């Protein structure tokens, strides 16, 4: 057994070393290695924060040189080995008062500009566009509530393929920081983001725009930004939200107002095209094909592609009582989730998607109930 462990260890180390070499090749694609400071700010607030941070660093540097200049001078000169004789002073009220007051003044010089920035960060009044961002395990949902684009609504999830995460293919330039649907905003407009969450606490964060705000289930918080120039700004969920926490990025695409207007028109057309008659009857094969896609996107992270789940943490669907039991109970869990467990509600999915995924689960792997669930049944269930 010992030999086996050692062999495994050697294999692992070899894997890491080859990986390291491979990495030096891929990382040529990375945008900026060895970045030493905050990213270049792209909004007024982010610029203020950047400058504030620079000010703090200069102040800290000055204190550093002052304090450690004295300490290291003392370390070098006041040594017994150099024959230095110890003095015997040990108290001075004047000195104590001086070095209590000086830091106090320095702190005020830091607090003043910070206070001004905080007040403007918190001023979410009079936005041009209001967008609600909802954190889900593990993707973001965006609803354009007010202003140009009102009514647009979509989900935004990681688009990096599993093969890249599993090191089977080289990683792309925006590895882990790319999504299927960007949150699109016009430049120069005040965007108010309302934040909430569906399951656990998430945090919506885009550093270049100077925003980070927790999304708390059951509560609404807000933040705002105004992008200075067109571009794509990337961030990541910044509050531990479960196992896929590293895999729910935020991508904001800021574009010129004319292009944004065009985007809004396209969004409208797209959403009209996807409206399907709820009474349309699908065949079992159509539902299974569609269902497999929905499953891969929404269920496989926990229940796994092979339906076996992760023992102890996430139950198997293959051969499970739910997937082979009464249809309605199965639909209920898919739509409403199960409280007290990690099983979230998926009521945000369309009737077609839920019908498809339930049909798929009841007829995939070793499950062979032969049941077909039509979108109309889901529509009925929701009433």
């Amino acid at each position, binding site marked *: 057994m010992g030999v086996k462990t050692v062999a495994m260890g050697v294999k*692992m180390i070899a*894997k*890491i070393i080859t990986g*390291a070499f491979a990495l030096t090749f891929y990382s040529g694609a*990375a945008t900026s*290695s*060895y970045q030493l*400071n*905050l*990213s270049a700010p792209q909004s007024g607030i*982010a610029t203020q924060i950047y400058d504030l*941070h620079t000010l*703090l660093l200069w102040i800290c540097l000055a204190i*550093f040189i002052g*304090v*450690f200049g004295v*300490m290291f001078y*003392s*370390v070098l000169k*006041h*040594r*017994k080995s150099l024959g*230095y004789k*110890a*003095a015997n002073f*040990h108290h001075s009220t004047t*000195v*104590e008062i001086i070095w209590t007051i000086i830091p106090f003044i320095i702190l005020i010089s830091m*607090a003043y500009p910070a*206070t001004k*920035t*905080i007040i403007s960060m*918190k001023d979410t009044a009079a936005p041009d566009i209001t967008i609600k961002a909802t954190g889900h395990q593990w993707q973001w949902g965006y609803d354009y509530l007010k202003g140009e684009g009102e009514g647009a609504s979509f989900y935004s999830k990681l688009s990096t393929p599993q093969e890249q995460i599993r*090191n089977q293919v080289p990683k792309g*330039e925006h590895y*882990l920081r790319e999504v299927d649907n960007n949150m699109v905003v016009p430049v120069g407009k005040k965007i108010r983001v309302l*934040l909430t969450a569906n399951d*656990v*606490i998430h*945090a919506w*964060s885009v550093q270049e725009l100077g925003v*980070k*705000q*927790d999304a*708390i*289930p*059951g509560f609404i*918080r*807000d933040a705002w930004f105004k992008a200075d120039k067109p571009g794509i700004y990337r961030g*990541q*969920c*910044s509050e*531990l939200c*479960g196992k*896929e*926490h*590293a895999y729910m990025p935020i991508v904001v695409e800021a574009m010129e107002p004319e292009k944004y207007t065009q985007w809004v028109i396209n969004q409208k057309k797209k959403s009209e095209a996807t409206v399907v008659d709820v009474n349309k009857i699908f065949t079992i094969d159509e539902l299974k094909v569609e269902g497999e896609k929905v499953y891969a996107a929404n269920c496989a992270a926990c229940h796994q592609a092979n339906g076996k789940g992760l023992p*102890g*943490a996430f139950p198997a669907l293959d051969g499970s009582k739910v997937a082979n039991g009464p249809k309605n109970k199965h639909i209920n869990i898919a739509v409403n989730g199960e409280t*007290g467990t990690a099983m979230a509600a998926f009521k945000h999915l369309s009737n077609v998607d839920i019908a498809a995924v339930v049909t798929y689960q009841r007829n995939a792997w070793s499950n062979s109930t032969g049941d077909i669930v039509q979108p109309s049944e889901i529509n009925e269930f929701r009433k």
Partner: protein
Amino acid sequence: MAAIHHPDHGYGHEHEHHGPPSGIMRWMTTTNHKDIGTLYLWFSFMMFLTGGVMALTIRAELFQPGLQLVEPEFFNQLTTLHGLVMVFGAIMPAFVGFANWQIPMMIGAPDMAFARMNNWSFWLLPPAALLLIGSFFVPGGAAAGGWTLYPPLSTQMGMGMDMTIFAVHIMGASSIMGSINIVTTVLNMRAPGMTMMKMPLFVWTWLITAYLLIAVMPVLAGAVTMLLTDRHFGTNFFNAAGGGDPVMFQHIFWFFGHPEVYIMILPAFGIVSQIIPVFARKPLFGYSSMVYATSSIAILSFVVWAHHMFTVGMPVSAQLFFMYATMLIAVPTGVKVFNWVATMWQGSMTFEAPMLFAIGFIFLFTLGGFSGIVLAIVPVDIQLQETYYVIAHFHYVLVSGSLFALFGGTYYWLPKWTGHMYDETLAKTHFWLSMIFFNVTFFVQHFLGLAGMPRRSPDYALQFADFNMISSIGAFGFGLSQLLFLYGILKCIRGGEKATSQVWEGADTLEFTLPSPPPYHSFETPPIVK
């Protein structure tokens, strides 16, 4: 008290005849402060290695982007348990170990006030540790919601979370009993003539720490109990759907959590304040201002908790209040650093291992203080919250702060405890390796955080790859260097040059009037302090 007036009234003789039982029962039944101190220290060292293995697994996974060694769920269990084990298993018990060994000797007492409770405080810890470590092996694995255990994520966990909650309860009870013991000992058992303002600073800092512990451990117990009833008994303290508020948990947790930070650093201040004057051969500068500064830090620690939560969405007034209060802590902390430097100034310094660790502490802890100031400024914190910058910051204050002070204190008192001098070359090598690898590991994490790398992530974007690799290499170097520490201690226990009772040329506190190693009941006759 009779023993004080009649020192030779049979008190000492009895014990010389009986002595402690031998073998394992000596350790199970011991009520001796030194034995219990030793138990605490070995326990914390074992937990330090356990938490260290978890840290190294984390760093191995983060050596390069992509998933290589562990799955995300297990990764989250590792980060959670690394935090819990290091805070509650390694750092806190280590300081209690120091308190047990040193406080009676430093105030001229024979033992701790409540000797049997002392035994019980320690023996609660191994079951708690078993619950924590054992939770990896139950269905669903260990708690994976971060050491802060934020709901609703923590209500999603399996029974590993319940085991963690019970472990926290037990360790909390142990800490409270330990603290009551320390407060009683310090207030009642000082040698005649040792007024409060003559106590060594290590005793002072522990007295203040003990009060902090008594104040906040019940708060943590309350928070995790509410979590438990939310999980199993249908309450909705932290569930918005039932009228609760998940953010309330964070307020309660950090009301405990921030004083907890000082619980882990104040005794370290104490140790450093003992070491610096001895090796500078010059009295501590500003003794009374040190006492006042420590007390101010302790009091302020109760009104700054929400600076851990600047991104939850508080009103402007709350953000401003917590920012100003947090910045205020820099004043007494600065006073301490200035006092240490003034103590070194015009001293006659030598640089044995304890002094090296103490200077390393001042230098790196101050860097951690700088990043603390940066994080106290709300707008900058908004950019850095939940990034590696925070990880870098608190490892500067907890590893190169608390842990370096513990290393320094160990080398400082080890000759007293064992009766042998340790191997100085080995100890200095341990210092320099720790110093270098610590900075390789954690300094670069500031850059990762500034560039926006989120913490608690098993995987990261490519622009973070280079610094992560450097950090992982540093972590393995730091971890392996600690084996030198273990070897040095074992070597010192087994033998070495005989230590004198004074051990260090400049040492003048009471423990250095006792032989090395000290007798079983430290001071049977109280010394007179002038």
